[in-house]
């Protein structure tokens, strides 16, 4: 077993990505993802890779487009306002079926917002970050270890399905240090026969493109892409369940807010309340199958988020009227406390007795 080290979430993502074979990083400075880019600036030249500080977020994501089409494992990272700027490029990347990793270390919004941790980009990430018919795989780690693990496997998923993948973190997870065991270095990477590498007079030309002027052609490529999405939905849903088996109340929370919810659930269990934590690890595809199964016994759901109530939409879609779905959240960069969540759980529990 590799030695555990203390690392910031931002740094763990960066190191893990390098170990996954990522040698190209294009970004633009923004708080609170700063350490990620700084780590890459330090490490990439020593790995024979490229760290390039682009003139803008827009340029950075388009460099990712170019490097991905050229066959490389490539990533960019930013925080909420910067991710909005990247949305153009993300749409083109999805439209051209190119793999890449995009990191969003969220801060409060809208607008310039705050620089404190937030989860208010859930809709943006899961409802398609950019124009057009597309989705991307979105991971929501809740520990530094998980940030490292998901950054590593995200490249495989991106390559397998030829899709952009996002890791949705926040300022708290990015800035905090926890013990982490880093993955082994990848020595072999998948072949990319579709890449625009120069045909070397040895194969027909490759083209990276999202333009289809004939409507039926575009419809066909969108149908094909959504067949891949169906596969992703069927096989890539991830979640963690804590004490859900006998729970009357299921608290649903992801990322940083799931840590607070976990503490609140522990306190509530100590009070004898039958409550569990359901933590989506993939936000898209939403772990609908596992959550739906809890409806067999759960009498109430509570979505806890660091926003005004975004994931709660997906919880309601899955629960589909089988039980009441409540919401508790703080926004603007305010982090809810376990005590606040515990109060909400108690309230719901009292309601169940009636």
């Amino acid at each position, binding site marked *: 077993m590799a030695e555990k080290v203390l690392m910031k979430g931002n740094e763990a993502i960066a190191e893990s990505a390098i170990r996954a074979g990522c040698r190209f990083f294009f970004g633009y400075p923004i708080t609170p993802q700063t350490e990620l880019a700084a780590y890459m600036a330090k490490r990439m030249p020593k790995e024979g890779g490229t760290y390039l500080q682009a003139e*803008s977020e827009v340029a950075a994501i388009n460099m990712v*487009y170019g490097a991905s089409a050229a066959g490389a494992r490539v990533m960019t990272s930013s925080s909420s306002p910067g991710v909005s700027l990247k949305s*153009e*490029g993300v749409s083109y990347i999805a439209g051209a079926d190119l793999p890449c990793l995009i990191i969003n270390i969220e801060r409060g919004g809208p607008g310039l917002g705050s620089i404190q941790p937030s989860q208010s980009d859930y809709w943006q990430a899961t409802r398609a970050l950019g124009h057009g018919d597309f989705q991307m795989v979105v991971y929501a780690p809740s520990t530094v270890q998980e940030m490292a693990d998901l950054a590593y496997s995200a490249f495989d998923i991106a390559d397998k399905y030829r899709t952009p993948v996002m890791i949705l973190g926040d300022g708290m997870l990015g800035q905090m240090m926890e013990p982490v065991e880093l993955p082994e270095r990848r020595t072999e990477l998948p072949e990319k026969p579709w890449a625009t590498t120069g045909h070397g007079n040895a194969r027909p030309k490759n083209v*990276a493109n999202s333009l289809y002027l004939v409507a039926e052609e575009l419809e066909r490529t969108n149908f094909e892409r959504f067949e891949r999405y169906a596969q992703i939905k069927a096989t890539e849903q991830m979640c963690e369940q804590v004490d859900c088996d006998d729970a009357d109340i299921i608290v649903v929370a992801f990322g940083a807010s799931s840590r607070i919810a976990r503490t609140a659930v522990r306190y509530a269990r100590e009070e004898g309340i039958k409550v569990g934590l359901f933590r989506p690890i993939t936000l898209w595809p939403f772990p609908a199958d596992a959550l739906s199964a809890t409806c067999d016994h759960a009498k109430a759901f509570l979505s806890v988020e660091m926003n005004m109530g975004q994931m709660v939409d997906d919880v309601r879609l899955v629960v589909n009227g089988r039980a009441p779905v409540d919401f508790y959240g703080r926004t603007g960069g305010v982090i809810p406390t376990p005590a606040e969540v515990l109060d909400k759980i108690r309230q719901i529990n009292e309601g169940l007795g009636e």
Partner: protein
Amino acid sequence: MAQAEEKLVYERPHSLAPVVTNYCPGCTHGIVNRLVAEVIDELGIEGDTIGVSPVGCSVMMYNFYNCDFLEAAHGRAPAVATGVKRVHPDKVVFAYQGDGDLASIGMAETVHAATRGEKITIIFINNAIYGMTGGQMAPTSLPNQVTQTSPYGRDVTTAGYPVRVCELLSSLDGVAYLERVCVDSPKNIRKAKKAIKKAFQNQVDGIGYSLVEVVSTCPTNWGMTPTDAFEWMRENMLPYYPLGVYRDVVAEGYANAAEAAAARAAACPIAMAENPQLDEIHAALPSKAKVEAAQAAVPGLNTPKEGGDR
């Protein structure tokens, strides 16, 4: 009876695909597309070339060429080309952009790719109008030029002045070569081809960022016949956008853009300081010779210098 000997005087360049383009009759895109293809053939680099097409009338260029191609978002071609070139520093990467793409929505990408000294080639078509969307004012539209969105003529008091791209970029240290040409006559077409060839050769030789601006026409949106359009271009555009070489570090006596930049910064202590840390990083990078040796060892990756059958 003696067989008449067949002499081939003109054919489609190998790197140009046998397809019908979407260009209007009399449009200069067709000429410049062909010149680029001829240069690719003559340099024997089709297998090593990766093109980037813009948004605008030449958006479909990826269909017109036989080399690998990417289609970029509006204005982002230099950023996309940067991404490709950083992954494949040994390949030839070019972007082809119009004036709206390069000098308006993509100005940041244009200026920064140039100042970074990306070793890419840019072919810039300046016809002073947005063609694809139907004739709107461009960043290079002339004062008083009537377009769909400057119906009373470009009003410099509200719309400002046109951008002279070669002049603007000539101040940047990352730039190796800038030339403005036009394609209104066989003589000028030959000059344009020479410039385009140089811009590609510079990249093959690792000299630095090269851009060729082609002062062009848009008969359709200008509302003129092709010959009238050329006449209008000569009368109005060339005085505003004088033809000529705006930067050529090799002609100035430098080996490449980096050497020219160093000469310019000679009086700046930090810019000229020794940097052993960077020296170490650069020394660890695979040299061109090492890359070529590694490629030679892989069957099928060799690129013949002339043409090439597939």
